[in-house]
């Protein structure tokens, strides 16, 4: 007779078999990617707690997706694509608060008051970001915070690579103008 414990173990291994990598590979991948993904989610949602939840969801979807990754960069881009979709789904919800972007994520930094100039710049950026379209925010973050290439951005956002240059140029111009405006 199969004991309850054996059944539980079998259930656990069945669940793990549904994942695209084993635990040790996951730990390495997670340690390399969790902080940048969390930072992206926190900046896009403005809510560190929500970023925690979305982080969990992003990794779950990543593990369940049976995708053959060509290399580490592809794996990382795929994770960012999932994160981007989660943020997009969140924005589509009826009561998603677009203005919360500047809120809690800024308050979470214990060293926020250390350098006055940097703090002012952060507030300016947060304010300016709220006035951008969600897609512009995604584009700018991936390009200038993450340092992703146009191909990687296109893959993450589901856009054509050929359109990234123009979209990025416009978004950058807008954000730069907003930053200048807040400087005055």
């Amino acid at each position, binding site marked *: 007779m199969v004991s309850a414990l054996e059944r539980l173990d079998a259930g656990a291994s069945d*669940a*793990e078999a549904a994942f695209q990598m084993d635990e040790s590979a996951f*730990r390495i991948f997670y340690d390399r990617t969790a902080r940048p993904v969390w930072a992206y989610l926190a900046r896009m949602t403005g809510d560190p707690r929500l970023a925690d939840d979305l982080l969990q969801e992003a990794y779950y979807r990543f593990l369940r997706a049976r995708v053959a990754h060509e290399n580490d960069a592809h794996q990382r881009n795929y994770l960012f694509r999932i994160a981007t979709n989660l943020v997009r789904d969140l924005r589509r919800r009826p009561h998603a608060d677009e203005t919360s972007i500047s809120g809690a994520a800024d308050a979470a930094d214990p060293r926020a008051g250390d350098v006055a100039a940097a703090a002012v710049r952060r507030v300016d950026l947060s304010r300016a970001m709220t006035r951008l379209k969600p897609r512009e925010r995604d584009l*700018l973050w991936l390009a200038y915070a993450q340092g992703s290439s146009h191909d990687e951005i296109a893959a993450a956002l589901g856009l054509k690579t050929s359109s990234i240059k*123009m979209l990025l140029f416009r978004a950058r111009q807008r954000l730069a103008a907003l*930053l200048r405006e807040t400087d005055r």
Partner: protein
Amino acid sequence: MIECGREADVFEAVAFGRWPSHAAPELQAHVAGCPICRDLLAVAAAMQDDRRRLIRAAEPPTAAIVWWRATIRARAEAAHAAMRPMTMWQAVAGTCVAALTAAIAAGVWRSGIAGSAAADLVARLAISRAGSPLAGFGIEHALLVLAGVVACIVLAPIALYFALADD
């Protein structure tokens, strides 16, 4: 013009923390005179600063916790998926029972004996079909069948509700 050939150099200097103190004077002079690179510098510097701060402040759960939660959820989803065919069959069976009882009730109603008392109704049915297999049916048995039919009518919607509630 939407791009400048020095964009990559400017971004690299910002991303690797070389701007402005360790950037080449020639690059600094270029940025001062190039509106595209000026915009890039303003945006990239603000973004990089923001990212560094967020990454420093980030306290994501450990890999072990994320992995453990994922396995729990995968297990729950697997169990739910395994239960789904069973729930479907329960719903089908419940629907069949409900349809059958409804058909019997309609047949009885149409035969014009719905108005009389339940016991008389079944007894008359048994007596009138003396030659049929129902001939040996006593009133007690007929009452039991009637009780069963009534129970089905009452219980079928409840069973259906519980079978489908999970989905």
